[in-house]
């Protein structure tokens, strides 16, 4: 079942076209990766879907409903929740309180919300930090907080914006594990990433943006062969390496 | 019709003085993002300086504007070094409350030293003179003040937009860290900007005893009006503050004459709300 249907979304800032008739779908229960060079319009697309921007053109259908141009809090309430690329902790509140704010979306009753928050904190390995002011965390901690907070809202669609940037390779592997577990629990995810090791192994489908335009939408194993994608973004070195690791291609 | 133009002229003259007071505040706000709640009290202090020079030493306010301007320049520098310096980087409320305390301090020091009595400087060079053009009356003190205001605002604007110092000021305003990295001594810029901002209002206050009574409360309303002008004109825009000042003066004058004196300020503050609800960044704000 299609959970998210992005139809010809265009976003213009004056003369600058940041998203040009972008269309793709996200199936329920899947993980879709959104990749592309810097400035391709990935975060702009996220902003359109999550309601921060009102698209200049096109439609966004979520779970059967047209959510184009709705206010951000409404879209979050419908179950499409995003994290921010430049992390935004609620600084003077504790880590626990941050996640609690997310949890309160579905549970107005305190006890329930507390339990949900504790669960998400455990999932994202934040227990040892939960009483600290959110502003005090390291960048890795803040990214995990973004995720825990968004998770606490019990989203149908979780949109992660570069959650792995700046992490060590061990931390990346840990994040990949968390995302796998989340998928097993039934959450659909759309993930913007530059860290290829973090997205290619787990994504069911990859959407590639370049210069505001979608240039490819396919399974990861096909994306790495796509010459346009290689040209625009991946580079032939990565493409060869990926194919080698997967066992198809000259070195496999 | 003639009455209308007369009322308009009166408004423009006082508006230009508002613009001068506002320009000083605009500079401070634009560069440091600080609302100087004591700005009106700076005006009051300048008026007292000018008054006492006139009363005790027979110096005409025309001459003592310079002294008043210099005095408030120093006052501004001191304010920065002793108070504002500690509020940079903290939420805006801190500077606002600190300068509120300063305003209370200055007002009551003057009340204590000089008593709350209204003081009028009589027999100055300009007072009681009027200039006639057609059927219109231009009171000379107000006219002089307005002309001075325009000149000083023009000078300040030229300074900020056309000189190397001015560019350093603008750079500091836009991004203090980046400016530091470019070799600009931003601390010194802050000190000078506070001083210059003070000097602007000091010059305004210097000439005012020619036509206004001096008393400890005289600055409060000017201060509020300065905030209104700066905010209406748009953050950091000196031309905006100037336009807003004139607009406020005109609206005040028209409302006071055609409706009722008490409506002067209702109209002015109402104007601010109307402008800012329609254009949340002010008329020319960035």
């Amino acid at each position, binding site marked *: 079942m299609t959970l998210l249907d992005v139809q010809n979304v265009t976003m213009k800032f004056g003369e600058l076209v940041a998203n040009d008739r972008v269309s793709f779908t996200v199936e329920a229960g899947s993980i879709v990766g959104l990749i592309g060079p810097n400035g391709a319009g990935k975060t702009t697309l996220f902003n359109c879907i999550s309601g921060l921007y009102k698209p200049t053109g096109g439609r966004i259908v979520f779970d059967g409903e047209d959510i184009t141009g709705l206010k951000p809090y409404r879209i979050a309430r419908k179950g499409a929740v995003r994290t921010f690329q430049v992390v935004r902790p609620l600084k003077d509140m504790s880590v626990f309180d941050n996640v609690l704010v997310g949890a309160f979306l579905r549970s107005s009753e305190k006890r329930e919300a507390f339990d949900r928050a504790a669960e998400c904190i455990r999932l994202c390995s934040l227990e040892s930090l939960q009483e600290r002011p959110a502003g005090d965390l390291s960048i890795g901690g803040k990214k995990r907080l973004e995720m825990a907070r968004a998770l606490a809202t019990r989203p149908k669609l979780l949109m992660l914006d570069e959650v792995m940037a700046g992490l060590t390779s061990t931390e990346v592997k840990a994040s990949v594990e968390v995302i796998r577990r989340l998928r097993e629990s039934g959450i659909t995810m759309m993930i913007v990433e530059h860290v290829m090791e973090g997205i290619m192994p787990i994504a069911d489908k990859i959407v590639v943006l370049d210069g505001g335009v979608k240039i490819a939408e396919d399974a990861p194993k096909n994306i790495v062969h796509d010459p346009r994608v290689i040209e625009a973004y991946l580079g032939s070195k990565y493409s060869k390496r990926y194919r080698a690791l997967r066992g198809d291609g000259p070195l496999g | 019709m003639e009455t209308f133009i007369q009322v308009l002229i009166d408004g423009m003259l006082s508006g230009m003085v508002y613009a001068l007071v506002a320009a000083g505040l605009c500079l401070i706000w634009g560069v440091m993002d600080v609302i100087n709640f004591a700005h009106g009290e700076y005006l009051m202090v300048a008026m007292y300086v000018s008054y006492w020079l006139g009363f005790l030493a027979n110096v005409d306010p025309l001459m003592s504007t310079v002294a008043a301007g210099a005095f408030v320049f120093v006052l501004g520098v001191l304010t920065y070094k002793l108070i504002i310096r500690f509020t940079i980087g903290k939420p805006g409320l801190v500077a606002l409350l600190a300068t509120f305390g300063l305003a209370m301090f200055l007002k009551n020091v003057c009340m204590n030293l000089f008593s709350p009595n209204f003081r009028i400087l009589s027999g100055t060079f300009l007072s009681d003179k009027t200039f006639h053009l057609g059927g219109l009356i231009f009171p000379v003190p107000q006219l002089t003040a307005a002309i001075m205001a325009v000149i000083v605002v023009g000078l300040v604007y030229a300074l900020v937009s056309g000189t190397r110092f001015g560019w350093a000021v603008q750079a500091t305003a836009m991004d203090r860290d980046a400016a530091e990295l470019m070799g600009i001594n931003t601390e010194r810029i802050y000190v000078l900007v506070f001083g210059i901002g003070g000097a602007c209002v000091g010059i305004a206050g210097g000439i005012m005893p020619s036509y206004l009574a001096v008393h400890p409360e005289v600055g409060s309303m000017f201060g*509020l009006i300065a905030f209104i002008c700066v905010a209406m004109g748009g953050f950091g825009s000196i031309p905006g503050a100037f336009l807003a000042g004139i607009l406020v003066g005109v609206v005040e004058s028209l409302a006071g004459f055609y409706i009722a004196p008490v409506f002067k300020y209702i109209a002015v503050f109402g104007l601010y709300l109307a402008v800012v609800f329609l254009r949340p960044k002010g008329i020319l704000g960035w």
Partner: protein
Amino acid sequence: MVNSLQRKAFTRKDAVWLVFLAILALLPLLPVVTANSFRMHVMILILLFASMAQAWNIIGGYCGQVSFGHSVFFGIGAYGAGMAVVTYGGLPWPGILIGMIVAAIVAVIISYPCFKLSGHYFAIATFAIVEIFNRAFLVWDWIGGALGLDYPLADEGLKNLMWHNSKVGYYYCALVIFVLIFGIVRWLESNRFGYYMRAVREGQETAESLGVNSTAVKLTAMALSAAMAAICGAFFVQYNLRVDPPMVMSLDMSMKFVLVTILGGSGTLVGPLLGAAVLIPMQEYTRALWGGLGGGVDLIVFGLLIILMVIKQPAGMIGIVRDVRSWFFKKRDAAKGDVPYDTP
């Protein structure tokens, strides 16, 4: 920062509050307290200003929208009660209720457009609103204009909310208001609305991305805050037996709301009380000692103190308490040989 891991509805801190309130309730039984009318007056003012500050704390401290317009709501509350008694010759109670409702409605109407403004523009807009109301009330004949309202002498007692011979009645009244407002804030603080208010303060866009309707939160907080401020205004007029526009609807009065909260510690439950408990005696005693010297020496001192407090410890007295506590604990832990916690 609230430590919210405490899930119990009734915590140890609440127990401390109850004991404190019991002491406050019993104070007037001590003749040493009631004998001195000035002392009672100061205590009543402390309770009143603590309540006022706590009312402002809802929108200004917890929700982070620094408004300088609260004297308008204070004034509406005062005039509500005042009109009921003076203009309509009745009991103050219906006037108090109407005052609260009107204040809440006015708050929502004027703050809705103001919330579209950011930072300093918002603050200045609230100044503008106070000044407009101030002058409008001066020329509004129905409410008494510049002359204000003077209370006629009535029988004392709870019905008329007026006491003549001793201040004890007023004291208990102020105490009830204090308990009410602090109780409401305590309840808000630990429930969803309190967290949403703080989220809006810390990052409005972030809160929105988590499903928080920030506009609704801000308007609700503002309405509550205004209604509480109005109750305080009603008490004020019943205590003062007189009201006129400059007395209640002034920028100075608005600044009091803000100052007491900030100097005590905004966004905390006990901050407003600390602020009032320190500032009001300071204000009243300096006025008693030096006000007679003429020329506001008390205000000169006050102004200097504000400057010092604000720049030295912007977190207010709560910040001072915390600093002292952590200094004390650090010494104790150092003596025990504990290593300080490192940020991961």
